[in-house]
């Protein structure tokens, strides 16, 4: 009988600690499948962020470096410059990448640093219990915007893909989502391409993945997926911003 479904080798066989309905686990799986398919586990080095996935070094089978909050692109730069043959990816949340680590991601991108960033946007600070993130939507209630995000008090959400795609060094920029199977399939394609871009030495690649945090959104897992579709997708349009036709 042919095996149609198995755990990717690049994902260690341990239970993930994420909440029920959290889509971080799906993103991990997609990355691991891509690493397997490209046969790059032995030369891949992942950079773990600060956030709910701080210890995803316990889940990925490749070498891993845990970075300070927001600094993963700088740490990845250091790793890659020492061993350019390594495939280096950073895994970062929206607080990590779009707040405290804004300078690091913008400059890694504009330097055309030959690394891949998987940016998981769940519109909230998951780990520290649901504070407003730079990507929190207008009117969204969080523990630090209890009356909803208001422009006159909190300003506006950051659209990371739109911003980074203005930079010459960022050669592949795509936003995908995890709210249904079809979108998860597209997410995998984008992640694969973002790694292939690096393997072809083309420059900086980023995939933004819209993701659910049912726990801090106060929704059940199914409602959370629907919330991505109804609220996030209209504000954060899905699709490729750059590098769709890049030869890899």
């Amino acid at each position, binding site marked *: 009988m042919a095996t149609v479904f198995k755990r990717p080798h690049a994902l260690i066989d341990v239970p993930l600690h994420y909440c029920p309905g959290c889509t971080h686990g799906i993103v991990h799986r997609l990355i691991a499948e891509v690493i397997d398919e490209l046969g790059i586990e032995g030369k891949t080095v992942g950079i773990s962020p600060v956030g709910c996935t701080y210890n995803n070094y316990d889940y990925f089978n490749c070498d891993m470096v845990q970075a300070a909050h927001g*600094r993963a692109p*700088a740490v990845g730069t250091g790793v890659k410059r020492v*061993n350019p043959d390594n495939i280096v990816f950073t895994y970062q949340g929206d607080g990590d990448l779009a707040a405290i680590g804004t300078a690091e991601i913008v400059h890694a991108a504009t330097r055309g640093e030959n690394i891949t960033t998987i940016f998981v946007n769940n519109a909230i600070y998951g780990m520290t219990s649901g504070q407003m993130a730079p990507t929190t939507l207008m009117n969204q209630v969080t523990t630090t915007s209890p009356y909803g995000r208001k422009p006159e008090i909190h300003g506006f959400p950051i659209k990371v893909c739109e911003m980074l795609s203005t930079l010459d060094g960022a050669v592949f920029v795509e936003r995908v989502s995890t709210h249904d199977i079809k979108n998860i399939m597209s997410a995998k394609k984008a992640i694969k391409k973002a790694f292939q871009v690096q393997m072809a030495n083309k420059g900086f690649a980023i995939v933004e993945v819209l993701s659910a945090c049912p726990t801090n959104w106060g929704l059940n897992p199914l409602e959370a997926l629907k919330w991505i579709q109804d609220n996030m997708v209209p504000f954060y349009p899905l699709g490729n911003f750059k590098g769709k036709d890049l030869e890899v």
Partner: protein
Amino acid sequence: MGEKLLMKGNEVIAEAAIRAGCRHYFGYPITPQTEIAHYMAKKMPEVDGTFVQAESEIAAINMVYGAASAGARVLTSSSSPGISLKQEGISYIAGAELPAVVVNIVRCGPGLGGILPAQCDYFQAVKGGGHGDYKMVVLAPCSVQELYEMTVEAFNISDKYRILTMIMGDGILGQMMEAVEFKDKEDIISPDKNWATTGTQMKREHNVVTSIFINPEVLENHNHKLQEKYALITENEIKVETYNCENADIIVAAFGTVARIIKNVIKMAEKEGIKVGLIRPITLWPFPERAFQKYADVPKAFLTVELNAGQMLEDVKLAVNGKKPVHFYGRMGGMLPTQQEILDKIKDILK
């Protein structure tokens, strides 16, 4: 005997790092150490190394963290305000036990302060600066020749103990032109970095570099291990120069460029029949307590001279442990003490 050249202090640091096998430099410009970056930008491409001008000192130290994780000998350099920004990374490097070298060519503060020489970052370097119970080795050279030798030494110490080593100088040392004699070949230790994240090549378990240990028992053990390492370094790596201390009327404690001024003061004092000794800590951490204990019974008093408001003073007092009075003379803001000022202070104490 190797080649002898007339070189600027800052350039010697850069040259020494390359000779020590460092092929990766990450930095952000700041006076008075920028020549290190200029030199690296020019030389690194010639030796197949990398030079990255980072977007900030925070990014630079985190690039160092990454490069050290990958097993490389790596350097960053800055001056006081930039070193403050590096404290986050310094603490993570300590926690993750990575070898790396940081240069601080100290300028006067606080805040943006000024660009002239000072020693006002002593506390930051030896007492912490970043968060957590950690130490780094701090070397305080006093000549361009020492800058060379200690830069090479810094990489060896870092690799040997998986620790961050700081070379602390000041603008005088960084800008000074002096003769330096390079060895033909450096003594370089190269321990097996089997912990480095270079890719498993599918031949071993994955390596993880991290400073987070959520389980309290594990983290306490990790801290005990760090403390044992610091104790070992204290046992093995203390460096100190003692000069003219036998039968001294007074012993001066000074480090870095100030110690050079003291040597001239010693000559002036001799003419007036006063015997002045010098204890010059070369490792500021680990601090050479025993040198002070050894001579604690000799002089009438100790005098600490620094370019700050009295920082090493506290460590000297702890080492002398009340056996003799410990006086202080310091200048700040980039002002330097004259030899006469220091001699007057000595005479005043001995009166």
